[in-house]
């Protein structure tokens, strides 16, 4: 198939980049959430929470903006996916709500039951958000039943099958690993030592999931490999991905925490790039009728809207990157609690 960088493809890439930004950034704060209950001491839990304190909200904006961009650029996909996955998305929204208020509410009151309740809510919500996002990706790989009017015709339970559950668990493992590395970056002393141990465990967990997921994708959904057969050069992505993951324990061992974090971020970016290459030019594959798939042409907005949105992105994105980088720079270094902390 021919590849040319037209407007629709550009928007496919831009939305991909937004979601990659989301996965890298919110990925580590969801990861912190999945590890939260493993930390028992209240002070240490506060350190965990405050490690993501100034940034979690901004990280979530990547998802919200990704949703808005999807709505603007590929409204048919936005409409089909959100109405089709209704129950799953409603559940996801509830988890996002609970997680946001849990972070904000937890430290406002000293009572033990109060804090434990919100700790629990924060952690469960983080797990479920990661899981549901993985399940959504799994469904896009495996394809969902779509009718001729572009409407989803399946059921909620069809979406939960062994393959999509596996992708869900893989996503949890990925974010756990990513979160543990971020934790190492932001903490010191005894807590940091424990987090280092978890980095090793979660890497093993992730690698097992990743290998299983890759094998099952290649066996059951070989269409994901088509572009890689056509353009073997793309295999470099898979290679960089493996090298990035293998590099993490090495960097942790030498105490180069920042480099470990960037390795992990690179691994996430490669994973999503592999996914994007696999599905291109479809956005939602129709299974069993592939000809009904929603792709970047039959589900897109008008050329004018795509152009206007590109101008908006061109003006806005440099600012977004500037704020994001400045905020992470200002809040660099280890967590220190003060009277404005959570």
């Amino acid at each position, binding site marked *: 198939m021919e590849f040319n960088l037209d407007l629709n493809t550009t928007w496919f890439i831009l939305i991909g980049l937004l979601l990659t930004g989301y996965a890298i950034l919110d990925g580590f704060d969801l990861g912190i959430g999945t590890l939260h209950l493993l930390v028992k001491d209240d002070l240490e839990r506060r350190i965990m929470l405050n490690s993501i304190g100034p940034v979690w909200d901004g990280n979530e904006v990547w998802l919200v903006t990704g949703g808005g961009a999807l709505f603007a650029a590929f409204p048919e996909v936005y409409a089909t996916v959100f109405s089709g996955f209704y129950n799953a998305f409603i559940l996801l929204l509830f988890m996002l709500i609970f997680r946001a208020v849990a972070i*904000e509410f937890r430290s406002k009151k000293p009572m033990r039951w109060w804090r434990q309740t919100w700790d629990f809510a924060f952690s469960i919500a983080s797990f479920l958000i990661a899981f549901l996002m993985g399940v959504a990706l799994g469904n896009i790989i495996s394809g969902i039943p779509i009718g001729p009017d572009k409407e989803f015709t399946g059921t909620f339970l069809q979406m939960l099958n062994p393959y999509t559950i596996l992708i869900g668990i893989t996503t949890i493992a990925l974010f756990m690993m990513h979160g543990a590395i971020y934790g190492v970056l932001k903490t010191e002393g005894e807590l940091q030592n424990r987090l280092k141990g978890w980095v090793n465990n979660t890497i093993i967990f992730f690698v097992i999931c990743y290998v299983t997921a890759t094998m099952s994708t290649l066996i059951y959904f070989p269409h994901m490999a088509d572009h890689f057969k056509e353009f073997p050069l793309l295999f470099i992505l898979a290679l960089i991905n493996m090298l990035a993951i293998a590099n993490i324990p090495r960097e942790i061992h030498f105490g180069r925490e920042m480099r470990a974090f960037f390795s992990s971020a690179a691994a996430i970016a490669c994973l999503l790039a592999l996914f994007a290459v696999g599905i291109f030019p479809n956005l939602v594959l129709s299974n069993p009728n592939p000809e009904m798939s929603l792709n970047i042409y039959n589900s897109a907005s008008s050329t004018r809207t795509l152009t206007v949105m590109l101008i908006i992105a061109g003006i806005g994105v440099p600012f977004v990157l500037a704020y994001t980088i400045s905020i992470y720079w200002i809040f660099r270094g280890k967590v220190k609690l003060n009277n404005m902390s959570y």
Partner: protein
Amino acid sequence: MDVEILARLQFAFTIAFHYFYPPLSIGLGIFMVITEGLYLKTKDKFYEQLTKFWVKIFALTFAMGVASGIVMEFEFGTNWATYSRFVGDVFGSALAAEGIFAFFLESGFLAILVFGWDKVKPKMHFFSTLMVSLGSMFSAVWIVVANSWMQTPAGFHLNGEGINTRAEITDFWAMVFNPSSVDRLLHTLSGCWLAGAFLVISVGAFYIIKERHLRYAKSSIKIALVIALCASLFQLFTGHQSAVGVSKNQPAKLAAMEAVFSDQENAPLYLFGWVDEKGQEVNFGLAIPSLLSFLIGMDSETRITGLNSIPPQDRPPVNIVFQAYHFMVAIGFALILISLLGLFYWWKGNLFNQKWLMWIFVLSVLLPQIANQLGWITAEVGRQPWIVYGLMKTSDGLSKAVEEGQVWFSMILFTFIYLILFVLFIYLLDSKIKLGPEDAEIIKSEIGHSK
């Protein structure tokens, strides 16, 4: 109940719940910019402490706004998929622009506003406060633009046939500055400033009554009273502009707002009343002759279109719109009156001795919130039966893949979760207020020792 009613109820409920918080964020944003500006100017630690107190309250309302706002971003897709397919080109663009221009700005600088007090220099911190405030208003800009396009669509053409018809942008700026955008944006923003100002006034008056944190209370009330007077007078102007706009662009809505049934000159303006929609009359009402015509056209001969000139299937429910609109206007005047009373006694130098006024201040926090909700009810119910005025009916915008049971499931859960959250929000707000600005250090030590 059918899917349509449920989906509408759910949307109304989730948006109404969400709309408690952003107005507070926008209103408090302005207030914090002023107090922190005073800190930079006077170098008086008092203003820093004052700002920090309100930042904490701001952070709480902001978190609630984010949590309930994410729902809104996706609810168009979950429950209104057909609408989303129809308007994605136009409406989606405004939402995406909101994300890029407003949310990133707001959330980025919020980090510095809340957590960055000793990470950056005071000037940089002030800049962050300014940016958060600006970001929250940018967000209002894009949302009101998107909603105004649903009221007065412009800058688009229809492409395709039957179920494949799409509204596509032809002129981006005409879409952004559609006939009602500017009036409605100013009206909305000024309602937000009022929400923030009266929260500050209410908390301050509570401290005065309890004789605590007096310096903080007095200073807060004075600043907020000035904002309140400006915003409530400005609201009169923007409200008038909006109504004139509605008469031009959405005659059915204006007719419902004032219960005008037959086309008429010298149309009266009701101060209150109860609309009998079947009998086409207003009962128990008090009307000022010709005033509506006069206000709309500055001439009592101005002809007002009545509901009877609009096909029956295109008319909005009248009494709801009438009541919502009239209560909103009444509250608007009450806010002007309360602000004037406050300024009068301040000028006389004995504002804080007026216990009765302090009690009115304490309760006044509810008024702008109620008026904001009523304003949106007027705007949205008044647009019915259209989801996009004149282009698509609300009943045609639903998701086809979503069944009644699913909406029941989400509706019950939303109701349950939002009720809990609202109670907790009020509880935490209350305990923050009771703790007050001077005791911030005490929270720290309590937390430090607890396990």
